[in-house]
């Protein structure tokens, strides 16, 4: 399968600041990639280079098989982080205009716009001026502008920011629908749960460098913290009874919750029946690594320490993760 986006050794500097440094990335066609990273990490600069809004100082890129996105603009949809609409333009007219810029023909365009507006519950806003819409509504209009031409590559920069939970869900469904249609989706976010819920694959950028580039499932396996959350039914139960159990390294108590750290060689499936037999629980849960843990640990631990260093990352997740929880 051909790759939708390929970045090789991409570097972009602004004066003294290096926004993106020697970045390599391959996004296969049809994939749903999440790009995460703290503010100022270089996500938006990378996205702008993919879209040929900015041009790299060094490195090569390929977008939908072309050396520049300028040759494939009509096949790309883009929702930028900095949202903008023509304030005085009517919603329907704006969408028709954007569709035309994306190469769609005038015939039946108005109908297509209405169909999309109806899809996001904004049909009654077709003749309203953009400035009359709420922020969430404007965001939905912009998303329609990004997908109305059924792009092969959809790039969304912080698509969920500023949306209420209902609109977030609607947007997520729409993105997934586009993915099912076959579009390659690349979106950036600093809200980790969105990446976890949506992505097949996560790329983490920190200080302009890629510090993580793995499938979601692999991240879960690799960064498994080997911890079990245990809540005893009897609030007076003594945690010390479990400390000596085989496979258990330590237990940290936090009110009624015990955080049981397992030996890296131990399996949760083996340890849990023994824990339950020793102390009757009200809740037992295998602690999963969250992207937030990975993110925070990399950001707080420094990118240099984390670059392609699984062992140190794993350690950072363990230590940092428990700290975060506390």
């Amino acid at each position: 399968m051909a790759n939708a986006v390929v970045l090789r050794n991409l570097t972009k500097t602004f004066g003294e600041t290096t926004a993106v440094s020697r970045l390599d990335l391959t996004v296969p066609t049809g994939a749903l990639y999440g790009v995460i990273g703290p503010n100022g990490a270089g996500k938006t600069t990378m996205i702008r280079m993919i879209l040929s809004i900015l041009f790299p100082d060094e490195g090569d890129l390929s977008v939908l098989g072309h050396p520049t996105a300028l040759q494939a603009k009509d096949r790309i949809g883009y929702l930028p982080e900095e949202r903008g609409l023509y304030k005085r333009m009517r919603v329907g007219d704006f969408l028709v205009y954007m569709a035309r810029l994306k190469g769609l023909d005038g015939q039946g365009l108005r109908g297509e716009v209405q169909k999309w507006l109806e899809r996001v519950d904004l049909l009654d806003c077709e003749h309203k001026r953009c400035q009359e819409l709420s922020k969430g509504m404007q965001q939905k209009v912009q998303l329609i502008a990004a997908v109305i031409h059924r792009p092969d590559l959809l790039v969304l920069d912080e698509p969920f920011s500023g949306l209420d939970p209902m609109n977030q869900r609607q947007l997520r469904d729409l993105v997934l629908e586009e993915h099912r249609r076959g579009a390659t989706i690349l979106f950036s976010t600093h809200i980790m749960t969105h990446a976890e819920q949506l992505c097949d694959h996560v790329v983490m950028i920190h200080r302009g460098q890629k510090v993580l580039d793995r499938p979601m499932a692999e991240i879960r396996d690799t960064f498994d913290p080997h911890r079990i959350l245990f809540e005893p039914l009897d609030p007076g139960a003594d945690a010390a009874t479990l400390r000596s159990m085989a496979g258990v390294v330590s237990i940290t108590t936090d009110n009624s919750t015990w955080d049981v750290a397992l030996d890296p060689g131990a399996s949760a499936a083996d340890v849990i029946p023994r824990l339950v037999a020793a102390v009757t629980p009200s809740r037992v849960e295998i602690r999963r690594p969250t992207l937030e843990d990975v993110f925070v640990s990399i950001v707080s631990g420094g990118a240099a320490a984390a670059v392609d260093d699984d062992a140190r990352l794993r350690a950072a997740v363990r230590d940092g993760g428990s700290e975060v929880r506390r």
Partner: protein
Amino acid sequence: MKKIRSVAGREFMATVTTKGFVFGILIAPLLIGLLIATVPRYLTKAPPKIEGQVVVIDPTGAVTEGLTAYLTPERFAERRQKTSLEIEKATPEVIRSRTSAVPGARTAVKQSIDDALGSVPRLQVVALPGGSDQEAAKAPLKVPLPDHGAGPDTRLAVIIVDADAVRPADGRDTYGTYELFVRDKLDDRLVDDLHAGMRDAIVASRLQVAGFDGGRIRVLTSVPRPDSRTVTAEGERTTNKELNILLPAAFMILLLVSVMTSGQYLLTSTVEEKSNRVVEVLLSAVSPMELMTGKILGQMAVGLLVLALYAGLGVLALVSFATLGLVDPFLLVFLLIFFVLAYFIFASMMAAIGSAVNEMREAQSLMTPIMMILMVPWMLWLPLSREPNSLLAIVLSFVPPFSSFVMLLRMTSVSPPPMWQAWASVAVGAVGVYGALWFAAKVFKVGLLMYGKPPTFGTLIKWARMS
């Protein structure tokens, strides 16, 4: 090309459908025309009544009588009548024929002229003997007017005639004159009448003393000045001296207004797109070059609309006054060519500035030098149109961005340059356009996504070199 067309179409429609454009470009001129037509009518509908005394201290004893005669209501009415006839004579035939064709129009026009000239003053000339106390005579001028205005006894002016105003002093051959003291805020038309009356009375007295027949001399020295007539292949017509000066100015104003209007709109819309953050959405669909080209072309259409509108009105006015023959249609073609050249240079600068700044306020400092450049031909209009082949005029007509304005000015002047110079100026202008577009494209590409510190011209040049 299709995308450029879409951008241009949106730019055009977004501009011409704004209230600002409709009001500023379409309705404002109509309103101004309406005001010009109606306001003077209302302003002069009831001119203030002038009534009061004019005191004359006349040691010669020969001037007061002449002045009194000059200031009688009958003589005032007679003079008004004469002026009214002169105005009517100066009115173009086309308007005269139309007013006489419409019932009541002639009376209305006559009434308007009479109103404009003011009502006939009712003045009483009071003669005081020479040697009267001048300060005492002037004192009533300081007394404020009563609330109901001036009455028959209100002193309006004091005239003190020199003793030698009619006969030169012994041993001299020059005459004296007079002094005029008036009340504060006296109608300036009355002041003019008093001067004219004094001149008339003194000259008449001097002639009489010298033994000449005043009436005879007036007849002998009167030579009516005829209008010169311009002879052309199409026939003869009255020479319109004013038009010879105004035509170049009219063409340049047309060029300036259309170029500045559309350039200003381009700046505003670019700044708006940038500050609204819609520019990044657009750049995901079109390249910076396509966006800039579309915007420039869209606003050029706006400029052409303005040009067509105003030039059309001008042509219409010339047709109405039967003076269309004064404008060579070829000049209109050159107006169009020079508009395109001047517009592209100006618009390129506006696009560059618009893309570089974050808000309109920041654009002002960058705009100042551009506006000053545009003002140069305007400031030099009179010397350039009087001396269209001076060294300055020739040099400026080959230096973009002045070239378009100055060459058009020269071409519409009384001694236009040879045709090869016009075409050479067009060629130089085209090179200027290329340079301006190149610079603007470089700055536009970098500036659109730059936010933060307001740039200077130095920054723009740096971006152009960097891009």
